[in-house]
Structure formats: C-alpha cells, structure tokens
C-alpha cells in the first residue's frame, strides 16, 4: 500500500513536483502559498532528481523564467496567489501565444487589490475567462483536497504537453493551507535529453545540423498569419472542449435541485446536500473539476429535470454566469457566496437554498 502522509495542499504541490519529474520551479513568496517554495527549498531536489528551484525577484520574473524553461521543452512550473497571478498574466498570455506547456498554481485569496490573505475563489473570471491579453484559453483545473493538489501536478503537465498550452491549477487558501492525508504514487523520473528531443521537437535544445532552427515566439505582425494562428488555436480549444471536460456528481441521480460548486466550496456544498437530504429535500451537487473546459453539456442536461440550480462560490458570483449559459433558462438559477476571505457553512448554504426556493 502506498504511504499516506499528512501534509498541506501547498506541500503536496511541492512534493508532487519532485516525485513527478518536474525540471524546474520558479517562484516568489506570497501568502497563502509560500509553503510551496519553502518545501522545495527544504527538500533540495537539485541534489536528488536534479530539479532546479529558484526564488525570483518578482512574480513577473518568475513567470518569465518558466517561459524560458518551457522554451527548452522542460517541465516547469510556478505558484502564486491572486495579486501575484495578476502580475503573471503577461507571461501567461505570451506562453499561450508561443504554445508553451507549463503549470501555474493560483492559491486564491480575497481581493481586489491587496485584499485579504484568507481563502477565496475570486480569480475565476481572471483565470477562466482571461489570464492575460489576447484571444486564448488556459486549461483550468480546480482541486478540492490535498490529494488533488498532489495528483493535479502530474495531470496538469500531461495536459500542458499534450496541447502545448498553459495549465492553471486554480486552488484557494483552504486547499493550500489545510493538511490532509496524501497518498504518494510511484516516483516518475525526469525526462532525459533524448526524451525531450522526441516529445518536444519544437524546443530550443540547440540547433543541430539535421533541423531548421527552432524559434519560440508569439510575434507575427502580419494580420493574415496571426489569424491563421488564432484559428489553429481555436481548433485546439475545440479538441480540448471535446475531450477533457471532467466533473464529479454527488447524489444527482434522483435530484430535484442542483448545486454547482468547485474547489473547497464543493466540499462545503456536499455537507449542505447531506443536510437537505436529511430534511427529505432531494438535492444534488455537480463539481466541475475542469473549469476550462467547462462542463456546459452536463449542467445543461441535468438542469432539464431540476426545479432550480444554484451556483455556490466564494466570490460575488463569477461561475454563475457559466451556469446560466448552461441552463439556458430551463429553470431558475440562483447564487450564494461569501467574500473577502469568509467561508460559508453548510447551514448558511441550506438557508440560502431554502430562501431562493421558497422552502421552509
């Protein structure tokens, strides 16, 4: 049986990076995710797997370091929290434009501005809808436990390299700071130079006689060439939307009311569903695991037989826009959220649910 270790979600990210053959981590301290780099520095992976770990002078520099590392075909990642991720958006856009694989962890806190350091889900729009200038999508995956944090690093790199696209692990202060047991999977070695030449023939590995020079750039200046590239990206996104949607349902089979919640909110929502079921109210939950691509089709199917759908988020109502798009007016769509780093309880969700549905 695999060993089970008690660790924080942030620590799980770091340990998973080392054990899954990540080549480099470049970061800058910010609460509530500083344990990622602290754990890496303590573990000294450069002495074992050869992984590079570097504290950058800013988030701007950190994201551009992973840009440089990704150019070489390496598995590189960074992590930050909301204000730092705002700074990284420039680099994320460049990486999307240069079609570079990377994993970026956003352990969200309350905003806008410096905001608070407590947990929040207020970067949904920034990351899922944007994450930088230009016409592009990040692949966005939302963990809900320390085990997810561990598992999503490897899954994230799989997606990033399969589609040559940035992948964002959209976590929050609860998932980052909470300790839970984490099951370790077998160690994956770092890829060799030969592996990289085979898997990433596009990378800046040094121009050899046998091939034209590799140039990693997001610049074209020619509208027609740029448009052809944009359409190529569009086809890639269509493939991602067709193949990579992932969600988890809880008690939806006979449900008459549906909650939609991601990340830590989905766990609290699950407890609310249990409470409602004890009252004889048939509630269910859909947790989108991928936020881009979003499970529009499934939410749409389920909504056809629901009395209502509620989006439960730790923000002012961001994902609810996507829920409404999916429901397309088939039933009423409600929202309940807390902001600023405050966390709702299952009881609060139950109360909000009853109020919205005019139930006692």
């Amino acid at each position, binding site marked *: 049986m695999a060993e089970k270790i008690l660790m924080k979600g942030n620590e799980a990210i770091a340990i998973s990076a080392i054990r899954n053959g990540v080549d480099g981590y470049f970061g800058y301290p910010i609460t509530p995710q500083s344990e990622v780099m602290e754990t890496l520095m303590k573990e000294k992976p450069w002495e074992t797997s050869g992984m590079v770990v570097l504290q950058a002078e800013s988030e701007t520099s950190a994201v551009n370091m*992973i840009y440089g590392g990704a150019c070489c075909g390496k598995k590189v990642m960074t992590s930050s929290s909301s204000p730092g991720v705002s700074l990284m958006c420039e680099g994320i856009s460049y990486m999307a434009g240069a079609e570079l694989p990377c994993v970026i962890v956003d352990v969200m806190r309350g905003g806008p501005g410096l905001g608070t350091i407590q947990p929040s889900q207020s970067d949904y729009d920034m990351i899922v809808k944007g994450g930088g200038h230009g016409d592009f999508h990040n692949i966005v995956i939302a963990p809900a436990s320390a085990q997810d944090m561990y598992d999503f690093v490897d899954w994230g790199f799989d997606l990033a390299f399969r589609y040559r696209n940035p992948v964002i692990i959209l976590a929050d202060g609860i998932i980052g700071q909470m300790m839970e047991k984490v099951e370790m999977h077998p160690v994956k070695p770092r890829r060799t130079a030969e592996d990289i030449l085979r898997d990433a023939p596009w990378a800046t590995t040094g121009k050899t006689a046998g091939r034209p020079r590799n140039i990693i750039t997001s610049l074209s200046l020619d509208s027609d060439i740029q448009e052809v590239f944009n359409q190529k990206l569009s086809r890639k996104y269509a493939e991602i939307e067709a193949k990579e949607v992932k969600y988890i349902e809880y008690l939806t089979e006979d449900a008459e009311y549906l909650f939609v919640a991601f990340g830590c909110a989905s766990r609290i929502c699950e407890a609310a569903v249990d409470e409602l079921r004890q009252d004889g109210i048939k509630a269910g939950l859909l947790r989108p695991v991928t936020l881009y691509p979003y499970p529009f089709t499934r939410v749409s199917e389920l909504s056809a037989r629901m009395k209502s759908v509620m989006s439960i988020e730790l923000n002012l109502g961001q994902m609810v826009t996507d829920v409404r798009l999916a429901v397309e007016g088939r039933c009423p769509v409600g929202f309940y959220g807390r902001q600023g780093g405050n966390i709702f309880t299952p009881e609060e969700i139950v109360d909000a649910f009853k109020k919205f549905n005019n139930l006692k």
Partner: protein
Amino acid sequence: MDIAEIKRPENIVYRKPALITDNVMHYCPGCSHGTVHKLIAEVIDEMGIQESTIGISPVGCSVFAYNYIDIDWEEAAHGRAPALASATKRLCPDKHVFTYQGDGDLASIGTAEIIHACSRGENIVVIFINNGIYGMTGGQMAPTTLIGMKTSTTPYGRDPRLNGFPMVIADMISHLDGTAYITRQSVHTAAAVRKAKSAIRKAFEYSEKNIGLSFVEIVSTCNSGWKMSPVAANSWMVENMFKKYPIGDIKDVLK
C-alpha cells in the same frame, strides 16, 4: 574581370558569416544592430558552439534578431529576457545562453530582471545595445537618453528636472558581486568592430567558466531616431555619447 573570376577563392576578401541567414535585415541603413549581429554570428561560428547556443531576443528594433542568426531562439516579453535566460541556463547548464537587448528593454522596463540576473551571478552573456533612444516605437526618450537630447517625448531636449538623469547601467551592475566581465564597446570604426568582437568572444568564453554574468554594452547610433545621416550620427556619438558612456573594460574578475 568577370564574375566567375571575382568569385575565385583567392580573390575573396570578405564573406557573410556562415551563421547569418539569407533573410533581408529590416534595420535602417547605418544602424549598428547588423554589425553586432554579424560579430555574434562570427563568434558562435568560430567557437564552434552553434548547436549549444540559445539566444533570447528582446522587444524593440532587434525583436526579429531570431530571423538573422542561425541558432535556436526564444523571443521574450519586453524587458524579461534575463529571466528567460536565467531559467534556460539553469535548466540547460551545458548551453551557451545570451540575451540581446536594447536600452528601453534592458534599462527601463527590464531593470529588475537585469539587476537580479547580475546579482544572482547567472552564467549568461548579455549584449546591451545603447543608442539612447527607443527606435522601434519611433524615437522616444530612453533611460539612457543624454541631457539635452531631443526625442519625440523630449521635444525640447531631456530636462533632468522633468525627465531625470541618464542611467549608466554598466557601471551600476559592476558593483554587483555576481558580474564577471563588464565592458563598453562601439562598432563605428573597423578598429572598434575588432575590439567589440574580441569582447563578445571573451564574454562567451567567460560564460563557460561559471564565474558570473558577462555584459557587453555596445554604444550605438540610431541615425533614424537621431535624425542624422549615418556618418553624422557616428560623429555625434563620439562627441556626446562617449562622454557619458566611455569605451573600455569596466570589470574583469579574471584580471
């Protein structure tokens, strides 16, 4: 003498460096970039390091440097080339990694990145083209614009009360322990070109020794931005730029 005769090996006095591509350069006539590109291509060729060299191009006139030298390139966001280079070198320590940056890219928006790459002692080469102006965007003030110098955003001349003073980056970073070799050169005469080339070669050689960052500043002209003929621009550079940015070695830890 017909063409075939002219092309006979014994008659050839100059040829395009092997690593300069056939792409037509977009630089203005009289610009220093082409000359510096040629020197870098020659050094890489002569050292036999084409397969192990990765260039990082900036944002600015030399954004398309990757079209001209036949090596692998990474095109950075504005000012961030030293961050890309730091990671590239650390992840691929057997490679020769250099950035090619202008004064707007390196000395303005990318100040943090260059200072910290120097401070960390990254084993990379930085080629810094200082012509005191933003060329690509149409001749605006750069951090290195001289006092009194007219640009499109200092139409009455740079006034320190309004615009601050010129930054002397090479001298600033010479105080950082992570730098190994810092020199300031120019490419306005044949002799200067020869000296600049040996400085670039030295910088690449130093980057193999893991002793820190090597920095070659090339004081350059921008005759379009300066609104002068190439010859007049060269004279103006000698009379004015060299006073603020004197030519010569500033630091060499192996001397």
